[in-house]
Structures are given as C-alpha cells and as structure tokens.
C-alpha cells in the first residue's frame, strides 16, 4: 500500500514540476525580449485574485475547460486523439443558441434541458463521425477531427449570417435560457460565472463513476489500453471507439452550451476556432486523465487565461504569453520521461546514501 501511495505522490509531482518549468520557460522568454517576468506574472495573478469579479471569470472559464478537458480525456483513455474538441464545442454552442432562440417562451427548466441536450447531441454527432470512420474504415481520427473543426467553423459562420440573422451576431437568448445564478453573480460582483460550475462538478463525479464503477467504463479502459486483448475477450473495439467518441463530443458540446448560454447568451461569427477546445487538450494532459486532476488543471488554466488579459496593460507583455506558457507546460508533461529520470536518479541517490549510513 505504501508503494502505491508513493507512486501516487510521484505521479502528482510530474504535473506540478511541469507547471513550474512551464512558468520558468515563459519567464526566460520574457527576459529574452526585455520584459519583466515578475511584473507579468504578478499582473496576471493579482489581476485575478484581487477582484471577486475576475475570480468569478476565471472559474467560469475553468468550468468550460473542465468539460472540454473531460471530453478529450475520455477519448484519450479509449486510445483516441480527439483534436476536434474545438469544433465540437462550436457546434454545441450553435445548437444551444439555435434551440434557445427558437423557443424563447418555454419554461426555464424545459428550455435549458432541450438547449443543453441539443448541444450535447450536436457535439456527439460531430465527434461520432470521426469515431465511426475510425471504427469502420481505420481513418485517422486526428486528421478527420481537424477537418471537421474547420468545417464546423465555416458552417457556423454561414448559419449565423444566413440562417439565424443577417449580421454577424445573433440576438440574446431569453431569460428562460440563461444559466446565471443570482447569488453567484452578486457574490462575484457581476461576473459571468454561472450554474455551469455545478454541472461541471456533477459531471466530474459522473465521469469518475463511469470510468471506475461501470462495465461500460471498464470496457473503454480495456479497449484503450489494449484493443487486441479486449477484442479477444469479447469486447467490441468498434462499439467502444464510437461510444467514447460520442461521449467525448457530447462533453465538448455541453461545454459549448455552457459557454454559449452562460458566458455570452448569444452566438457571433468566429475568425478562428475557440481556443477553449485546444486548451481542453492541455487541461486533460496536465490532469493526467484523472477527473479531479482535470478540474484543478482547469482552474489553473482558467486563471492563466483570464489573468493573461492583465499583462498587456499592467506589464506591457502581449497576452499570447499565457498560451506559450500553456504549451510549455504540456511540453514538459509530454516529455515527462526526463522528469521521471531525474526524480529516479535523486531517489536512488537518496537510498544509496541511506544504505551508506
């Protein structure tokens, strides 16, 4: 038992060290270009934590990241790389707003349910295309999901301009489709934090329940770790590919609904794919696929995202710095072999010293 605890501890060390190294890398880069990294990081953190409003905003951002992170994670566990999270989030956003605008007068509980439900279905279908093609034709899900990302982007803009409105922004959804929670808004001095937070916490729990306590989760894990042995044992690899991609896309679509209904309450034309999708990949990799880990990674990246906005004005550093730090963190998570190697060396040195005593 002791050994599993120890390995859990060292498993925790990798993301923590990766985050540290990522920040250090960012600092070095800023120094290289003549910026003051301490000012920049201070601006980022103070900007968020000195104001209830921005704490609320960071949590709101983290909420959506939790969905996209969990979405990426479940496909990853099943052995697939769903790079299409951004596109799936976008179609979820479109679906939620479309439904909410179509039935503005339905009671809140019903309208929210069908709007969010439509978003989940839309995201699931979008990812399901890639899953189905992978299952039946062996087509690389990486390329298919990326292609579907751009397809989603163009279709979204077309739908906004030609179907929902004639301009670049839709109307706001009705009060009945709003996710805002009065006391949370008041507590955070009017931030856009919303009931998505509670949905996210519930989904984190459901994700854990699904993966560890259900036969379907057992199958997803087994197929992800060894599809051949799972097939020999009578599981259907195809079914699980599709199932995990459906859930993955569904979670991304849910994130899109929370973002659309909760953050903005409308839909507008996009010049590029939402970064929330790609950062979801980062969140999942940093959280090592563990739902609680993903939740905490989301909060970190939420703070980074929102805090980045303070860097240009308060420290003169372009806010893209935050994205560079995120990329660096994931670099170190991905290259954790080195971190492990160093940790192991330190450990064996320690035991050697002990042995010498």
């Amino acid at each position: 038992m002791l050994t599993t605890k120890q390995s859990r501890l060292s498993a925790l060390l990798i993301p923590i060290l990766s985050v540290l190294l990522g920040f250090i890398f960012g600092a070095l880069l800023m120094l290289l270009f003549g910026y003051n990294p301490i000012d920049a990081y201070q601006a980022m953190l103070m900007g968020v934590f000195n104001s209830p409003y921005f704490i609320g905003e960071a949590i709101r951002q983290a909420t959506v990241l939790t969905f996209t992170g969990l979405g990426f994670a479940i496909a990853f566990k099943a052995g697939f790389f769903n790079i299409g999270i951004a596109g799936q989030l976008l179609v979820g956003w479109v679906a939620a707003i479309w439904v909410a605008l179509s039935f503005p007068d339905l009671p809140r509980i019903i309208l929210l349910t069908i709007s969010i439900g439509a978003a989940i279905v839309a995201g699931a279908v979008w990812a399901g295309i890639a899953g189905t093609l992978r299952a039946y034709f062996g087509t690389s899900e990486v390329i298919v999901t990326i292609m579907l990302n751009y397809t989603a982007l163009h279709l979204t803009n077309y739908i906004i301009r030609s179907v929902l409105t004639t301009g670049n922004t839709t109307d706001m959804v009705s009060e009945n489709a709003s996710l805002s929670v009065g006391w949370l808004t008041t507590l955070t001095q009017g931030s856009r934090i919303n009931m998505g937070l509670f949905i996210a916490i519930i989904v984190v729990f459901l994700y854990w329940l699904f993966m560890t306590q259900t036969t379907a989760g057992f199958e997803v894990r087994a197929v992800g770790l060894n599809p051949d042995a799972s097939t020999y044992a009578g599981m259907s690899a195809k079914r699980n590919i599709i199932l995990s991609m459906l859930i993955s896309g569904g979670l991304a679509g849910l994130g899109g609904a929370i973002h659309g209904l909760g953050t903005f309450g409308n839909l507008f034309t996009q010049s590029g794919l939402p970064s929330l999708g790609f950062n979801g990949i980062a969140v999942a990799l940093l959280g090592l696929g563990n739902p609680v880990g993903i939740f905490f990674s989301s909060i970190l990246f939420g703070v980074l995202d929102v805090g980045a906005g303070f860097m240009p004005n308060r420290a003169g550093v372009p806010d893209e710095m935050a994205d560079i730090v995120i990329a660096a963190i994931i670099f170190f998570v991905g290259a954790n072999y080195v971190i492990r190697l160093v940790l192991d060396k330190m450990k064996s040195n320690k035991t050697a010293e002990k042995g010498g005593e």
Partner: protein
Amino acid sequence: MAQTERVIEMKGITKRFGEFKANDNINLNVEKGEIHALLGENGAGKSTLMNILSGLLEPTSGEIYVNGKKAKIDSPEKANQLGIGMVHQHFMLVDKFTVAENIMLGKEKHNYGFMDDEGAEKDVKDLSDRYGLTVDPSARIEDISVGMQQRAEILKTLFRGADILIFDEPTGVLTPQEIDELMDIMKKLTDEGKSIILITHKLDEIKKVADRCTVIRRGQSIDTVNVKNTSQQELADMMVGRSVSFKVDKIASVPQGPVLEIKNLTVKESRGLEAVKNIDLEVKAGEVLGIAGIDGNGQSELIQAITGLTKAESGTIKLDGKDITGEKPREVTETGLGHIPEDRHRHGLVLPMKLEENMTLQQYYQKPFSKNGLLNHGKIKEFAKKLIEEFDVRTQSEESTAASLSGGNQQKAIIAREISRNPALLIAAQPTRGLDVGAIEYIHKRLIEQRDNGKAVLLMSYELDEVMNVSDRIAVMYDGKIVAIVRADETSENELGLLMAGVSLEKAKKELAGKDIKAGTAGAAGAAGNAENDGKERATVANDETE
C-alpha cells in the same frame, strides 16, 4: 582441430538490471572452427550474454577477449569490426526492402551516394554462391519464405566479414527438414574456418551439431562439456538443475462425443488470400487434439475463425452442438470456449490493468461481478484471490498490474481465467512459448487435467515435442489444409516433419520405411533419419553414434 585457438573468451561477465543479475560471473570460451552451444532455459541469461558479445549491451563487470586480445565491445559496429555477427531469432530484416538492400544496409554499394542496385545484387549473388546459401537478391523480404529470410540474415553477417557467428534460437520457425539444411550450413561454415555459437534450449540440436556446450542456469555458467561425452539427459539435468522427465504423465484418453465440429471451413486472411482451405476437423470430449505445422500454414486463422475473431468465408463450425459460425467472440465464449492465445501480451492480457481486472476480462459484465452495469469490485477481488491461490500465480497482490508479473505467472493467470469458466473446449495456442521448464510442466499438467475432466482441448504449437507429448491425436496443417490426422503414439517426429512439409501420409510412410532399411544396413550413421521419438531412446542412439 589440431591446435586449438580461442576466438572468444568471456571472463567473469556480470550484468545487472537494477537489483536483478541477468548474468552472474559467467565464463565462456569459444575455439576456432567449433560449434559451441549455449544451453539454458528461457530467462537463464543466454540472450543477455550474447547481446553483450554483439555490442547491444555493456556488461556491469567482466572482460572479453577476441582472438586473444582484450576488447571493449560498445556498439554493434564494434562487434562487426571484430568479426562477430549475430543471426537474430526475430530476424532483423526490413520487410519492404529487397534481400540485397537488407544485406548491404549500413555498408551500401553506391556511387557518390546513389545506390548501385545492380552491383549490390551481383555481390550478394556471389556471396550466396560461395557459401551455398541460396537467396534471390532482388526479392522483397515480405515475399520470401522464412528459410530464405534466415539465409539472408546469415548472409548479412558473412557480408560484414563475420568469423564468429552467433545463432540465436535459429530453428524455432523451421521445419525439421529445413533444420537439417541449417545444420549442414553451420557445419559448412565451420569447415570454412568460421566459429559458431548456437543459442538453444533444444537438446537434440546440440547433439546433432555442437562440439562443446556451455550450460547456463539462472545467470550463472554451470559447466562447459564435450557434447560427445554427455547424454541428453545429463544436459537437461544441468540446464534445469534437477532431474527432469520429458514425458508428460498421462493415462490413455477416453474420448466421447464431439465438442467441436468443423465442416468445409474456408477462411481468408487479412490480405484476402485463402489461409484455411476447406477443412474438416473434429475434437472430442476427453481428448487433446494437437495441431502441428510450420508457422503460417493457416493455424492462426483456423483458431481465429473458431473463436469468432475472423469471419469464416464458408463452411460451418459447431461448438457443443450449437452452430457458432459467424458468431462474435463473446457469444462463442459464452457457448463454452476457453482460449489461451498465442501472444499473451498482445491478445491475452491488458498489461497496464490490475490482475483482478484481467482475471474477469470476459466476465466483468456478468453476475456476480456486476449488476445493472455497475461493477462489484468486492466480488471481482474475491474471485481473483481465489484463482491466484488455486493456480499458484505469484504476484504481490491482486491489485498489481499484469505487466508486473513474470511471463510464466502471466500465462498461469490466463490459464486460470480460461479454465475457471469450465469451457467445453479449451484452445491453447503456443501455451508454453518462452516459459521455463517448471512452468511448462505445470501447464501441460493442467491441459491434461482438463482432458481428464471430460473437456475437449485443442492444442496448437510449433514445438513438435509439445504436440507429440501432450496430444492424443495430431492434425498436421500444411498450406491451409489438414494433410493428415495421426495418433500421437503411432507417429514419429520424422513422419510429422514430412507431413508438415506437405508430403502426403502415404509417401511419408514409404520414405521413412526406405530410410529405416538404409539406416539398418549402413549402421548407426543415419541418426538424423531415425524414427524414434522417445527422448531417452534418442539419447542412446546419439550416444551410440559416438563410438
């Protein structure tokens, strides 16, 4: 050999992997022009030692002398320069390249960086003519026979001027007849002044070709003996460290009604060619039916069709009276099939998952392991603990990952899982591959036990000894067809060998009868052509030969 000359001297070689000593103070001397066998069980440390000699591993301590000079072999390149070449067990060949490209790779024939394909092919042709190793230089590796692939692998070392050739378990993929050819090649090479180290765990091969033999057990060199003066039994005892019997103890089988009935079965492999061609086969309750054959003659596809992993092209498969043709693996399993797959790492276990999860890999969705889609971890654990104890699976705990177990214990875990479901038919494909003698004995016992309990067992193995010792009847597969079904106690290794090479039963019997007469008149010279299959008798025959 008038004046012996040591070409290789390894002194006190130790190799540690963390806490584990794979080689512990091993000594090995190889003389010029000899075939020196390196005998040991799987995991004894033979491969580690040879990887050290061929520059793939560096020893923790110890010294190596090549041709009397101390050498530091820190790369395969260095080994090449010293004239040491390795013929790998799993051929180190690039499938998509031609024979010539594979042989030349790293020492290419080129003009200013541009490949000279014609020149290269000519050089390879010359080399193959010189040593009598027939290959087609311009053929792609993926298109040629295993035997030719091996010859290409040998040529690769000769092309690099190797004088000391290491053969790592070279016969596993060959027919008995191809093995004889290989033995001839090896003898011819030593006649040319080459020295050979033969890594093997097959005693009869050592008796046939080796001059001396170094036995390795648990990382230590036990002894180096003169093969002529040592019996197979003595070698075996040295290898295992205790007295071993090769015979599997079993009573006569009492076959009952058919459990598996296959009619007119045709199966296509992934590229769309027919791998199993219109075969009929029956396995009865209370018998072990062995399938003998060289790798790639349709055995794997046959098993995949029975287990539901591949769709049959035509024909029917009945299990326990139920038609299972075209059923999915899960339905077939539920009908009453246990399957010990050929590749336990790829197909038998999910290595990163816990042992307890692996133990219920086929049953997790059934009661009592789950209810309404929710897993019952307590029951899973309880079940795993029971199997671990009953089948003596050595593990830290049922929560350890399958990857943390040794090969033998992984296989035991699979067997425990498959037998615990009490299947009407148990398919065991290469169930003892890579295991040590203790584990092999245990697994054979379990298979026989299953038979004695009135179940049917289908055993597929490329090891003839195993098929002959464990089976009651043997079906020989060649080119997708079952060429003969013989009784295990009425056949011989040579007869099976001929059948496996596609010779019909009638012809095989005739040919063997002819050989026996010849052998009888020409004295004991034809040991290789002898028809006895009993281990002890073979040993005595070989001993006779030395006089």
